[in-house]
C-alpha cells in the first residue's frame, strides 16, 4: 500500500472503544474522538442502525424493541470483533456502541465508526463489524406490537452477510 501500511499494522496510538449502554449516543462526538487532532486519518465511515417503524405485520404496528444482552460477554465479544477488524485492515481507530433496553421507532440502536488512512479499509471494516456483530454479539430483540410481544427470529440473510468475510 502506498503509505506503507500493511494489514496487521497497529498504530501505537490507535483509538479503539466498545461501549454497551442504555443511553443514546452522539455520532458527531464519536467521529471527533477518532479523528480530532490527528492528520493521518484519510477516511471515516459511520454506520448508525435505528429502530425502524414497521406496520406490515398482522399483529399491528411496531410499538418498541427491547434489546436484551449478556452483560460482560457483549463487551468482550464485540472487543474480539474489533481486534479481528484491526488484524484485517489498517485502522487508526474504531468505535462500537450498542444500546440495550426499550427503544421506540426512530431511536438509535447501534453505532460503528471506523477511521483509516484509506476509504476502502474504512468502508470494509465498518461493514464487517456490522455483519459479524449481527450474528455474534449476544443481543436479542423483543418486538412489541400492538397485540403481541415476539422475540425477533435470526435472519438467514444476516448469516450470509457474515459468511462473506470468512
Amino acid at each position: 500500500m502506498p503509505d506503507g501500511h500493511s494489514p496487521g499494522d497497529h498504530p501505537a496510538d490507535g483509538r479503539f472503544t466498545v461501549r454497551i449502554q442504555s443511553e443514546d449516543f452522539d455520532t458527531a462526538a464519536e467521529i471527533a474522538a477518532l479523528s480530532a487532532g490527528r492528520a493521518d486519518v484519510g477516511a471515516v465511515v459511520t454506520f448508525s442502525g435505528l429502530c425502524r417503524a414497521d406496520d406490515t405485520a398482522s399483529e399491528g404496528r411496531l410499538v418498541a424493541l427491547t434489546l436484551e444482552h449478556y452483560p460482560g460477554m457483549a463487551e468482550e465479544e464485540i472487543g474480539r470483533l474489533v481486534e479481528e477488524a484491526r488484524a484485517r485492515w489498517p485502522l487508526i481507530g474504531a468505535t462500537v456502541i450498542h444500546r440495550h433496553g426499550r427503544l421506540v421507532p426512530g431511536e438509535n440502536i447501534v453505532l460503528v465508526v471506523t477511521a483509516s488512512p484509506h476509504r476502502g479499509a474504512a468502508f470494509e471494516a465498518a461493514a464487517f463489524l456490522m455483519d459479524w456483530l449481527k450474528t455474534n454479539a449476544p443481543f436479542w430483540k423483543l418486538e412489541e406490537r400492538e397485540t403481541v410481544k415476539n422475540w425477533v427470529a435470526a435472519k438467514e440473510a444476516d448469516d450470509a452477510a457474515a459468511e462473506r468475510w470468512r
Partner: protein
Amino acid sequence: MKILYFAWVRERIGREAEEIEAPGGVRTVAELAAFLAARGDGYAEAFKEPKVVRAAIDRRHARPDAPIAGAREIAFFPPMTGG
C-alpha cells in the same frame, strides 16, 4: 457452575441464572443441554430444538461438542438478533 439463560430460553425456563452441579457423565455443551432439558417442563420446552439453542462458555461462543470441564459460567440463548 453458574448457568445463565437469555431471551426466550430464559422465559421458557423461568429464571435468569442458577448454580448447577452436573453429574460426571455430562462432559460437553450438548450433554449439559440434554441434562438440563430433563429437569422439567420449562427446560424441555427451552431445549426442544437443541440445534437452535446457542451456548457460551466463560463468555465465548462454544459449539455443542465443546468440553465443559473447568467452566465457571455457561450460558444458553437463541441465535443473536442485535445490531
